């Protein structure tokens, strides 16, 4: 494996990647270390926004926008909504950690190892061709409505089942 030359990689993109990645790592650490649930949720917004920024760096506009729409616009808003409906204390809380928090560290380390191994195994030292322009949304939809149709429909059914399940659980009468 020879060393990469500056002419072979997009330097600006790499610098941007590491800046955003550092912010994301810091945000992720603060999610688990902060002493206030709402602060944790807001740090999670920073992490998820960082993911969207990374997608933009990878020229995947549609995925980036979906990330903002689904995770920041919907999931995090529901998170905050739920937190504020139930426990909305301002300031530090003492009983945020439960007894099993130690298990999280090996699980996270294992997950990181698996993902790093998968990426290195797949791409190794190969340089991915830079796309001339961002992938048009129509090309994306062509993929998941042709080759990917069956998994796409299967995922839709899982989501539908979850939605119906939520209604059944929430209904009292």
């Amino acid at each position: 494996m020879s060393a990469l030359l500056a002419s072979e990689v997009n330097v600006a993109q790499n610098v941007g990647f590491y800046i955003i990645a550092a912010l994301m790592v810091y945000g992720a650490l603060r999610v688990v270390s902060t002493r206030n649930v709402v602060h944790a949720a807001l740090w999670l917004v920073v992490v998820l926004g960082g993911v969207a920024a990374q997608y933009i760096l990878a020229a995947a506009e549609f995925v980036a926008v979906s990330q903002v729409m689904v995770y920041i616009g919907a999931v995090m808003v529901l998170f905050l909504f739920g937190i504020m409906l139930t426990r909305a204390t301002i300031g530090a809380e003492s009983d945020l950690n439960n007894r099993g928090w130690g298990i999280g560290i090996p699980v996270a380390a294992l997950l990181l190892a698996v993902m790093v191994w998968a990426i290195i195994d797949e791409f190794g030292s190969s340089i991915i061709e830079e796309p001339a322009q961002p992938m048009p949304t129509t090309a994306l939809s062509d993929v998941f409505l042709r080759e990917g149709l069956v998994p796409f429909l299967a995922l839709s059914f899982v989501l539908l089942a979850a939605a119906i399940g939520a209604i059944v659980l929430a209904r009292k009468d």
Partner: protein
Amino acid sequence: MIAQLAVEIPYWGQSLLRVVGGLVAVLLPAGTIVYLFLFKMMSFMQSRLGPMEAGPFGSMQLFAEVGKWLQKEDIVPENADARIYKIAPIIVLVSTFLLVVVIPFGPDAWFTNFSAGVFYALAIGSVSVIGILVAGWSSANKYSLLGGLRAAGQLIAYELPMVLAVVGVVIQAGSMNLQDIVMAQNTGEIFGWSGIGFPFVLTQFVGFLIFMIAVQAELTQAPFDMPIAESELVSGYMTEYSGFRFLMFFIGEFATAGVFALIASVLFLGGWGIPFSWFGWETIDQVDNWMNIAGPLIMFTKMMVLTGIIMWVRFSYPRFREDQLQRFAWKVLIPLSLANIAVTAIVKVVV
């Protein structure tokens, strides 16, 4: 736009131009809306004069108000979560500025030509909810918290019909790029007659109605003003804010009204364009350069008409009750917009 000026502008100059353009595109509509509709139209509808002292017909009133707000002390309640409390209005205002970025104002007068433009606008529009929620929470005030929760519940409910209403337009135009949507409307023909192009409001009238109702709710304008219901909650999530930070919420509210009206005019009323057949243009490259000047003016006119309707409704109707508001979104608007998508898709495939 830059290329046609026949001068070479360096990158920093272009960026500066874009920033200034963005500020104008957000603040000018906001100021006009506040003066023309909030000060003058509301006064007219209530048989009074409105501001008359500052400048001719009170036209300088807005500057006086801004000056007043800037002088006021920036108060943070003692029990509040100070940092979050200070960030919240910035989140709301920044999401407005990010919205205007995708709107095309002319053949070359755009900030960014984004292939997933509509989707981006809808996604960024939903970010401001976070600002409103944390503003309500961090104020350490029961009224604020209640207002924030009401706002979040309402915005989540009305975001869905808004997205679904836009899908009809996207199906018809065959693109999510706002520039392509403008093109599709101005090069279109109605049974071979191209005199007025083909604004999508003709076929997507249901979608247009749903979109405008959802915009009204997203902006928390009456009759959807449960979150800031002044007779119950003082001023909802903005109760504790004063001075500059209140000004940010205030600008955010009316600037977002302007930006959403711009988006609606792009999606349904033909955007910056005039029917291309009038001047024998066929593609966007043939459009004359003067459209870069005329386009923003056309957009501004359409925006004023749409915000005029939004404000007219605001001044005319009493407030919805919370359960009516939720029922209206989930049981009327969402099924209606789903039916609209189904019909549009069937017609698109058949025709």
